[in-house]
């Protein structure tokens, strides 16, 4: 542990930068804000493994589901399903059969990905670095970012699918003409049509952007704070402060992690519920 902490003490900036960099498929860093030639293996693998755990648990439960004697994992999943279904029924009573699965997938998957934040910030990076060094790589150039939701790709993948569904539900329930009318005559009536188009477009686009950025921002900030607290390991005398701050932030983060997952799920239901309303008359 002291070895992996050594660069942190000597150069904090390098330590943090190292932790904020993804492992990429080609080994090159993205050159622009949007660069589709790069693929982050760490983010993808961790989220895929977490998705598989959830899917496996679901499969195990459904294989021997028992209505009379629910046990163990079935109880947990039943509770989660009931909780999510309650939210869907309250917010979006006319929801079709896809909204519930969508909502529970978002909730559980985001919760799992966020919960990766609870692992010590150096655990997975050191582990991967150690394994890489066995194969002859320099651990200082092996990057691993273990929390998938501190990555814009993940949060925007979720947000974009929700955005697509918002458009789909709008067209499905209002008709294409009805949806266009919303852009034209909402919110100021027909005399301010250009303003309406701009306003409604911003309103609609703000939904996925805020969804994606909210989750990303919260988790990224949380991870960064853990890194800063980890930097306090520069001296033995700073240890009590590190422990105290780490504990406090950890406890606070235990609130943030499920809360962000819940908010993402709830807003998804709300947006889809709004999208499924019929045409409003102005």
């Amino acid at each position: 542990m002291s070895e992996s902490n050594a660069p942190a003490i000597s150069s904090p900036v390098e330590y943090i930068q190292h932790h904020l960099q993804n492992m990429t498929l080609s080994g090159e860093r993205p050159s622009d804000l949007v660069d589709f030639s790069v693929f982050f293996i760490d983010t993808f693998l961790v989220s895929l493994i977490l998705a598989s755990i959830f899917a496996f648990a679901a499969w195990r439960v459904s294989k021997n589901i028992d209505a009379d004697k629910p046990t163990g994992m079935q109880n947990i999943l039943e509770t989660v399903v009931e909780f999510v279904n309650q939210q869907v029924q309250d917010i979006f009573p006319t929801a079709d059969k896809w909204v519930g699965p969508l909502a529970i997938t978002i909730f559980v998957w985001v919760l799992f990905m966020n919960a990766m934040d609870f692992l010590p910030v150096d655990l997975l990076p050191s582990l991967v670095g150690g394994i890489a060094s066995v194969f002859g790589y320099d651990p200082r150039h092996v990057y691993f970012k273990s929390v998938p939701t501190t990555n814009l790709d993940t949060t925007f993948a979720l947000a974009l699918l929700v955005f697509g569904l918002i458009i789909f539900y709008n067209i499905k329930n209002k008709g294409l003409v009805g949806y266009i009318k919303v852009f034209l005559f909402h919110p100021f009536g027909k005399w301010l049509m250009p303003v309406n188009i701009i306003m409604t477009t911003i309103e609609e686009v703000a939904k996925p952007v805020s969804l994606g950025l909210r989750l990303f921002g919260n988790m990224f900030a949380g991870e960064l704070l853990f890194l800063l607290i980890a930097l306090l390991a520069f001296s033995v005398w700073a240890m009590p402060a590190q422990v105290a701050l780490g504990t406090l932030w950890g406890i606070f983060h235990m609130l943030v992690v499920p809360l962000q997952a819940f908010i993402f799920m709830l807003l998804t239901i709300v947006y889809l519920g709004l999208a499924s309303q019929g045409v409003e008359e102005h």
Partner: protein
Amino acid sequence: MNVTATLIGQLIVFSVLIWFVKAVLWEPIINTLEDRKKRIADGLAASEKGMKEQELAEQRAKDLIKQAKVEAAEIVSQAKARDAQMVQEAKDKAVEEADRVKAGAQAEIDQEVNRAKDSLRSKVSELAVAGASKILGKEVDASTHKSALKDLIEQI
């Protein structure tokens, strides 16, 4: 902080996960929950029905017991009446039987008496003839004294 090709990978994972969760987790569990809800409701309704039925059955049992008591009392009184009647009948029968026996005995006695008389009559003539011949010392012809003998017999 970049948007990369990972986005597409995450989109695919997300979509597949939604589909999988819907098929494997959401629908079976929602069905199970619905099923359980229905069964609990059914069970409660059935228990309520059962309780009502029990109440009815108790009421019916009470009615039956009451009716049975009434019937039993009736049967007892009937039996008593029948008892008295039977005793009376038995008495009557006994008296009748006694009368009959008495009459039979009487008839037998009479018959016996008559038979005794008859045999006496048949013997009387012989005795009279035998007695007379002893007294007279000579043979008496019964046929010559037929009328006298007949008189004698008649007197018995």
